[in-house]
C-alpha cells in the first residue's frame, strides 16, 4: 500500500529496441510441480517486432511458461531475460510494470466492472495521481483521471467497444470479452504481449478478424507478441516463427512451413502412427 503509481508518460509506441537483442530471452527455464516436471530446459528468444508462436498439444506446458514469464509461477530454474534484465521470480505486478502484458486462456475479465473500468484498471500503474489526490478530488486528480479515461476510450474505440463501454464485462458475448481482454492487456502499455489462446472458441470468420486485429495492434503499437494457440490454421497464418512444445520440452522450432513438415510435430499432434502414415 501507500505506493504512488509512477507517472510515466510513455509514448504509445514502445521504446525502440536495438534490433538484434531479443526482447525476451528465456534460457533453461524449468518448472517442477511436486515431482512432476511441467517445463524442462525451455529456451526461446523473441526479437523486437516479432510475432512468435508457441504451440503444442494439451498439457505440453505452454501456459506454465506464460505463467512463469508473467510472474504467476516461480520458476524452479532458469532465466527469463526481458530486455537485458532477469525477471524470473519477480512478482507479477512488477513484471507487468516492466512491460509485459498478457491475456488468459480462459478469459479473466473483472466481470462485475464495466468494460471501461476494465481497461482503466490496466492503466492504473500509470494513473499519475495518488489516493490522497483522489480523496481531495484536486485538480491533479481531475486532469489525470480525464486523461486516463480518454486513453482507455481510445483503446475501446480501436476495438470497436466504445458503444458498450458502460456494460458490465460479464454481460458481453464471448467474442467481445476476448476483445476487451486484448484491449485491457494493451492498455497496460506493454512492449511484449503474451496472448494465451486468443482464438479459443472462435469460429473461422472470427478468427480471420482476430488475425487482422492482432496484426493491426502489433504494427500500431510496435509490439512484440508471443502467442499460444491450438488452432494450427491460425498460428500458421499469423506467426513468423513457431516453437513447438511437448511434455514440457521444445521439440521443434522454425517457420510455419518448417513446422508443418516436421515429423516430430505431426507425431506429437496426431499420435505415433500418424507420422508414418
Amino acid at each position, binding site marked *: 500500500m*501507500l505506493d504512488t503509481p509512477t507517472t510515466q508518460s510513455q509514448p504509445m509506441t514502445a521504446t525502440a529496441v536495438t534490433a538484434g537483442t531479443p526482447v525476451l530471452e528465456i534460457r533453461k527455464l524449468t518448472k517442477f510441480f511436486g515431482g512432476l516436471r511441467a517445463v524442462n530446459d525451455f529456451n526461446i528468444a523473441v526479437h523486437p517486432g516479432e510475432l512468435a508462436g508457441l504451440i503444442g498439444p494439451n498439457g505440453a506446458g505452454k501456459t506454465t511458461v506464460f505463467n512463469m514469464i*508473467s510472474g504467476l509461477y516461480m520458476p524452479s530454474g532458469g532465466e527469463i531475460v526481458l530486455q537485458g534484465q532477469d525477471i524470473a521470480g519477480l512478482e507479477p505486478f512488477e513484471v507487468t510494470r516492466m512491460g509485459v502484458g498478457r491475456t488468459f486462456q480462459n478469459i479473466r*475479465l473483472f466481470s*462485475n466492472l464495466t468494460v471501461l473500468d476494465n481497461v482503466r*484498471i490496466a492503466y492504473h500503474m500509470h494513473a499519475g495521481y495518488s489516493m490522497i489526490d483522489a480523496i481531495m478530488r484536486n485538480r491533479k486528480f481531475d486532469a489525470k483521471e480525464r486523461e486516463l479515461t480518454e486513453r482507455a476510450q481510445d483503446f475501446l474505440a480501436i476495438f470497436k467497444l466504445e458503444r458498450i463501454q458502460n456494460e458490465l464485462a460479464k454481460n458481453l458475448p464471448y467474442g467481445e470479452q476476448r476483445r476487451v481482454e486484448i484491449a485491457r492487456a494493451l492498455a497496460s502499455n506493454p512492449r511484449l504481449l503474451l496472448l494465451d489462446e486468443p482464438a479459443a472458441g472462435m469460429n473461422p470468420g472470427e478468427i480471420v478478424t482476430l488475425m487482422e486485429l492482432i496484426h493491426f495492434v502489433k504494427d500500431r503499437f510496435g509490439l512484440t507478441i508471443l502467442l499460444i494457440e491450438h488452432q494450427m490454421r491460425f498460428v500458421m497464418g499469423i506467426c513468423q516463427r513457431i516453437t513447438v512444445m511437448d511434455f514440457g520440452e521444445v521439440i521443434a522450432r522454425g517457420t510455419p512451413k518448417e513446422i508443418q513438415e516436421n515429423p516430430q510435430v505431426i507425431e506429437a499432434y496426431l499420435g505415433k502412427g500418424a507420422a508414418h502414415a
Partner: protein
Amino acid sequence: MDINPVFLLVTLIKIVAVIAWIYGLLRVVGHASKWVKIGGIIVAFLIVQLAISVPIGSSPILSNFDSGLLFQACTMTMVALGLNLIYGFNGQFSLGQWGFYGIGAYAAADITYRWDNYDAAGLLVAGLGVVLVGLVILMLNRILSRMRGIPVLSAFTLYLIGVIVAGAVALFIGAAIGQALTPLFGTEEAPGFLASALMAQVVFFLAVLIAGVFAAEVSFLFGLPVLTLGSDYFGIATLGFSIVINTLMVNSDTILPFPEMKGGRGMVGIPKVTNWFWAFLFLLLVIIVMRNIVHSSTGRAVMSVREDETASKAMGINVANYKLLSFVVGSLFAGIGGGVYAHYIGFLSPGTFDFLVGFNPLIIIVFGGLGSMTGTIVASFGWIFFLEGLLRVILGQMGTEAPTWRFVLYPITLLLMMLLRPQGLLGTVEWGFLRQREVKPRSREESNTVPVSIGAAPAAK
C-alpha cells in the same frame, strides 16, 4: 397493554422519513453546483438538528429515543461502510471489523477521559504515540517497499519492532515533558486554555481522528501478515482478532496498563460530546472519503482484486498492497465510528464489542448489497431503526411477555430477507452522490486514434 396504532404509525413514518432524508442528502451532495451542495448539506443538517432540538408542544419530533437511534445508525454506517470497503469492494471476508470499532471507541474515550481528568502527560503520550507509530510505519514502508521478495513475517517483525520503539519513545517524551503542560489546564475554578469548552470540542475531534488512525495502525500490523491468507482463513483469523481484542478489553486494567478503562466493569466518565453535528460531520466525511476512493483509480484497483486476483496482478496491480490498503482504510472508518459512539453513550463495556454482536456489520452490508455504498447506509439506518426502534415499539405494546420474542423475530426476518433477496436490498444500486459518474462514449471523430478497418465485430453474439 393495548396496541397503540398511532405509535406504530409514527415510528414507521420516521423510518421512511429517515430514508428519504438519506436519499435527499445523497442527491444534494452529488449535485453539480457548489452552492446547492453547501446549502443542501447545511439544510440536511439543520432539518435533523431542528427536529431534535426544537420542541413542538413540549416534545421535539425526534425524541431522545429517536436521536439515540440516529447516532447509533450513524456510527453503524461508518463501521459498515468500512467493512463494505474491505469485503464488498475488496473481497476480503473480514469478521474483525467489530474489534477495530472497539479499539476506536476505547482509544477515543481514553483520550477525552485523560483530557477530562487533566492528565496532560497521558494526552501527550496518546497523541504522540499514534503519530510516531504512524510515521515509523510510513518510513519502514518506504524502506521495505524497495526491497524485493521480503517475507511477510520478516516485514511484520520489523514493523512490530519499529512500533514498539516508537511507542516507547512516545512514552518517554510524554513522561518527560507531559507534566510541564499541566498548568495549561488551569484549575476547576479558573479553567486554563486546555480546559475550555471550545477545547472540549477540539479535543473530541482530534480524539476521534487519533482513534481512527490508531485503529488503522493496528489493522496495518495485523493485516500485513494475515492478509496473505485465503478468503475464509482470513475471515477466521479476523474473528480471532476480535475475540483477542475483546479479551484484552476485559483485562484492560490488569493485563493492559489502563486502570481507567476498568476492564470488565466498563469505562465510566467519558464526556458525552457527540451531538448531531459531530455525528453528521463524521458520517459525511466517511461517506465522501469512501466514495472518492471507490470512484478513482485506487478504487478500481481495489475492486479488481475482488474480481480476479490473478488478472489484477497481470494488470500490474500490487494485490497485497491493495488488500492492505482497503483493510486499513476500512478499519480507520470503524475506529472513527467507535470514537463517535463512545462519546454518544458515555460508557464502554467489553460486552458491547462481543464477537456475536460483531456479525451485525456483516449482516448489514449483505442486507444492503455487497459493493453498494447506498445499500450499506440505508441498511444501517434501517436495521437500527427496525430492530431497536420498530420492533421495540411493537413488542413493547404486546404485553410483558412479548419482548422475549425480539431475537426470535429478528433472525426470521433475516432468513426471509436472505431467501427472498440474496443479492441484498439494493443490489448494486447507488443514489446521487455515490453513483459513478457515467462517462460518455467518445465518438470516433473525437478520438485521436486512426480508424481501424478490421472488419465487423465477431458474429458470436
